[in-house]
């Protein structure tokens, strides 16, 4: 049986067996390649057909019972079985083939994967490159931030080798580069300069330092020199040290007073030897004040306190003490003061003490006048003319020193529940405007004080001292004139004597002080008040002049700044009837003679005598008036008033004016 099988096998794969002599295991794999699967399929079909036919033959044989055909069946069985071997072989081959195909598939798949990966990599690379490109495009150069000189300027200024116009004109990149080059060039140059300047500065600083050191070393030397010269100074009576001490004390003055002191002593040295300036007061207190800051704390219950009626004595006492305490603080003045002494030619001396009110921030002045030894100052009607309250009134127009020049003070005083500033003047002194100016303070309307400026002070110094001195001179002279008028004599100094005739008949009977009220009730003085030529703040005097039964009453209006404003006269005459400027034009003309033509009574230099001269002139006119009136009248009998004066014409012109003008050369009276 084995033979048969092998034979069969041999039949089927004889060739294959031959070829697979070299390796037994690979035989079939190689066999697969050589077989065509289509052939194998047909072989498979054929084999199956043979098996089927063998089966059917076996069955047929079996059905044919009788006959012994077992052999035949056997044979057939063997053949069929052999066919299974073929099938097996085919099965194996199919398996091998299947495996081969699977391997090939996986191989192909792997290759595809590889390609895909490669593709991915390339895509990524492109993306990266694109990004790089955009970044490059977005690149900003630093030079864009630099401000370059304009192109035209660049071509104008830069040297040819930097600007290279032939290239840069067309190529903007090159141009920018060139401009940058030029910028760099310039900056280098400037840097160089800066360095030089710094060096120079250092050098100078060094120099200053050495000089400063030198100066500092000098100070002790000077001190020793000063010390050693002291006996010499004392011997020679030169008060350099005193001055120095005063100057040192001046450092402790409040700023406005310091300005005042400085400017006035400078003024003294430069222009006015008859001015004395010194510092008075407690230096120690000033030093301590400088270190401690003074404050006025809030008094919130001040209003309440003022309204409350003190219920008990004790309460009142505390309230009073609190008020005084507050007052003291508000009205505190600096312990140092500046004393100015203005000496006049006649020996009189004006003492001005300047105080600084620390919380009110103003300067107040205390005045004292010391008259010269040979001056008559006793006068009843003008006794107050040199008093401290009034002597410096209206130094500048309208400056009475009654109200504080600092508008803020009013509110402050009210806030502290204190009275109006005017109330405290007797103890504080007067805050004249010029005093503030001398201290460099200038208050504007509703404005806080500015810092004290010496320019303000120096601008007012000369004029103020001149005005003060002139005021003293004119007041002294006025006082003398008033004293003389009270005695009934009109004092005409020699210089002016030729202005008047030698003989005057009318005489002064009385000279008295009057008031604005008395003046203003007179009907004939109203026009002067309406015209603003006489006011409430003026000084009024009444003089009575008589000749026989005729009486002339003269109202004299003096201003505080006499003789800058010449006295104004209002005249009334009582002689049989009452005559005033309102009903008699000759009286008006008489007033005109003194009120308007006063220039004839003044010689260039001094106007101080104007009051006496006017009075004398008026009395002269009164004589003329009476004498001409007497001539005019057609009265019978002896004339009361005889003609004493010489005049060619009694009346003249439509107004029948009288010859009030005196010609001193010939001694006769003429018309104006």
């Amino acid at each position, binding site marked *: 049986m084995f033979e048969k099988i092998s034979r069969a096998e041999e039949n089927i794969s004889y060739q294959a067996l031959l070829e697979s002599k070299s390796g037994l295991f690979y035989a079939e794999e190689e066999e697969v390649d050589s077989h065509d699967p289509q052939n194998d399929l047909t072989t498979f079909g054929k084999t199956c057909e043979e098996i089927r036919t063998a089966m059917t033959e076996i069955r047929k044989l079996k059905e044919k019972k009788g006959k012994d055909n077992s052999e035949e069946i056997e044979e057939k069985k063997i053949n069929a079985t052999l066919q299974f071997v073929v099938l097996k072989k085919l099965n194996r081959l199919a398996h091998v083939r299947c495996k081969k195909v699977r391997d090939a598939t996986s191989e192909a798949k792997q290759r595809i994967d590889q390609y895909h990966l490669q593709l991915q990599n390339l895509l990524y690379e492109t993306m990266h490159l694109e990004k790089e490109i955009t970044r490059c495009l977005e690149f900003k150069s630093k030079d864009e931030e630099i401000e370059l000189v304009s192109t035209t300027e660049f071509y104008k200024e830069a040297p040819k080798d930097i600007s290279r116009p032939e290239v840069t004109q067309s190529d903007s990149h090159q141009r920018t580069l060139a401009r940058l080059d030029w910028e760099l060039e310039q900056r280098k140059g400037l840097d160089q300069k800066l360095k030089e300047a710094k060096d120079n500065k250092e050098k100078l600083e060094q120099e200053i330092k050495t000089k400063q050191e030198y100066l500092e070393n000098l100070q002790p030397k000077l001190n020793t020199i000063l010390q050693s010269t002291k006996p010499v100074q004392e011997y020679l009576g030169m008060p350099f040290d005193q001055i120095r001490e005063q100057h040192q004390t001046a450092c402790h003055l409040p700023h406005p007073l310091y300005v005042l002191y400085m400017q006035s002593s400078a003024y003294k040295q430069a222009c006015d030897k008859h001015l004395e300036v010194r510092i008075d007061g407690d230096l120690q207190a000033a030093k301590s004040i400088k270190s401690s800051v003074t404050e006025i704390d809030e008094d919130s219950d001040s209003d309440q306190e003022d309204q409350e009626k003190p219920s008990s004595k004790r309460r009142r006492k505390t309230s009073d003490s609190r008020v005084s305490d507050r007052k003291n603080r508000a009205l505190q003045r600096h312990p140092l003061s500046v004393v100015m002494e203005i000496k006049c030619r006649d020996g009189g001396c004006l003492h001005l003490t300047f105080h600084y009110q620390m919380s009110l921030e103003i300067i107040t002045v205390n005045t004292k006048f010391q008259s010269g030894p040979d001056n008559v100052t006793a006068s009843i009607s003008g006794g107050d003319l040199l008093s401290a309250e009034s002597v410096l009134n209206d130094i500048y127009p309208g*400056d009475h020193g009654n109200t504080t*020049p600092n508008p803020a003070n009013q509110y402050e005083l009210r806030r502290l529940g204190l009275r109006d500033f005017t109330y405290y003047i007797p103890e504080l002194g007067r805050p004249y405007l010029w005093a503030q100016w001398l201290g460099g303070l200038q208050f504007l309307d509703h404005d806080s004080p500015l810092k004290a400026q010496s320019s303000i002070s120096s601008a007012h110094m000369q004029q103020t001292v001149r005005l003060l001195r002139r005021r003293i001179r004119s007041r002294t002279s006025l006082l003398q004139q008033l004293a003389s008028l009270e005695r009934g004599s009109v004092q005409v100094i020699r210089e002016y004597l030729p202005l008047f005739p030698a003989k005057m008949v009318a005489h002064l009977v009385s000279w008295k002080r009057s008031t604005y009220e008395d003046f203003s009730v007179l009907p004939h003085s109203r*026009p002067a008040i309406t015209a603003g030529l006489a006011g409430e703040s003026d000084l009024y005097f009444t003089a009575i002049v008589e000749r026989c039964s005729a009486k002339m009453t003269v109202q004299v209006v003096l201003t505080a700044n006499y003789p800058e404003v010449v006295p104004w006269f209002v005249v009334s005459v009582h002689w049989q009837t009452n005559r005033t400027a309102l*009903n008699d034009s000759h009286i008006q003309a008489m007033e005109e003679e003194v009120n308007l033509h006063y220039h004839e009574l003044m010689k260039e230099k001094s106007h101080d005598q104007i009051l006496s001269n006017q009075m004398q002139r008026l009395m002269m006119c009164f004589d003329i008036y009476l004498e001409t009136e007497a001539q005019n009248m057609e009265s019978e009998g002896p004339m009361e008033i005889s003609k004493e004066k010489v005049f060619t014409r009694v009346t003249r012109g439509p107004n029948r004016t009288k010859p009030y003008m005196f010609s001193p050369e010939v001694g006769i009276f003429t*018309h104006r």
Partner: protein
Amino acid sequence: MAAVATGILGSTCYFRFNIGNLNLNGKKKKSTDLILQDRSLAARKQYHTSVFAQCFSPCGKFLAAANNHGSIAIFSLTTALSPDSTEALWKPVYSFKASEEGAIFCLASSDIFLISGGNGPICAWKWSDILNKSPKVIWSWAIPKKGPFYQTEVNTIVIDKQETQCRLYAGCGDNNVYVWDLETGEQLVTLSGHDNYIHSVSLKNKGQMCATASEDGTVKLWDMRHPSAAEHTLEPYKNQLCARPEFGRWLGCVAMETGDDWLVCGGGPKMSLWHLRSLEATTVFDTPAVCQKTVMFYEDTIISAGGEPYVNHWYVNGDQKSRIPCTPTNVFSVVVNTALNSHKVLCTAGNRPKIDVCTNFGYKAFSLTFS
């Protein structure tokens, strides 16, 4: 700075001399202190300004006035009379210094000239020059000097304009009236005979008759055809109707009526109406204790003024028609503008810088200010 100073101090300024008054009146007297007190020479000069003469321009639209300081001011009546006129317009449109020697006492106007007299010579200005604000003296006549100390003034000038001639009469301080021919500039006649200076001159009968009032108390009537001596002399101070010895004998004003034979004169004696043919005083216009300094016939009335702040209007029979108050207390000049009917006003000037203007002669309309 001074302005600021007065601003700060002005509100509470008072004087410390009168301490007693101060406490009584410290508060209520703020207002008077706020008046700006200008006591300069200019303010004093303004206060002592008297206007002696007035004269209307030939067109009747302007008023010229002259004062004691030798200035002439021109006022525009057209502006001052306009309905919306205010105080600011009652001031001179132009003023100039016309005399270096002091007061100007009289003004007269011819067709082209404004003529002024007073201290110094008689001067003539062209109206056209004045209105162009560039006046210059066209001609001037000096009055012969009487002596070294005798200042001859011109108290009145009157222009006599006739068809054949135009003459200028000037009543002067040397007791003479000089007559010039205005066209030739020749001095024709001198009327002399008064014992004192001439106050006023009046003409009538086409310039054939002239009346002069003098400080010597007489009115002399001259026949200009025989001017060597006065024809008649009136002596009011001797007439018991009008004599007032306490005021003297002087006569300040004279006027003659053109038609009838009436003459009015006044001064120291009471103002009186005289009949020229009988040379008798017929009517007395009594102003107690006041001397009249200016008089004129106007229509059927007589207007006069003098040493009181009133202008008197009289009927010829001696009754007083009205008494109009005015600003000056001593009136020197009253004039009526007859040249232009629309500007027919009566102007009163005297010892104040204000010139009163009456539009209906019944009351003061407003005052021009000489400044």
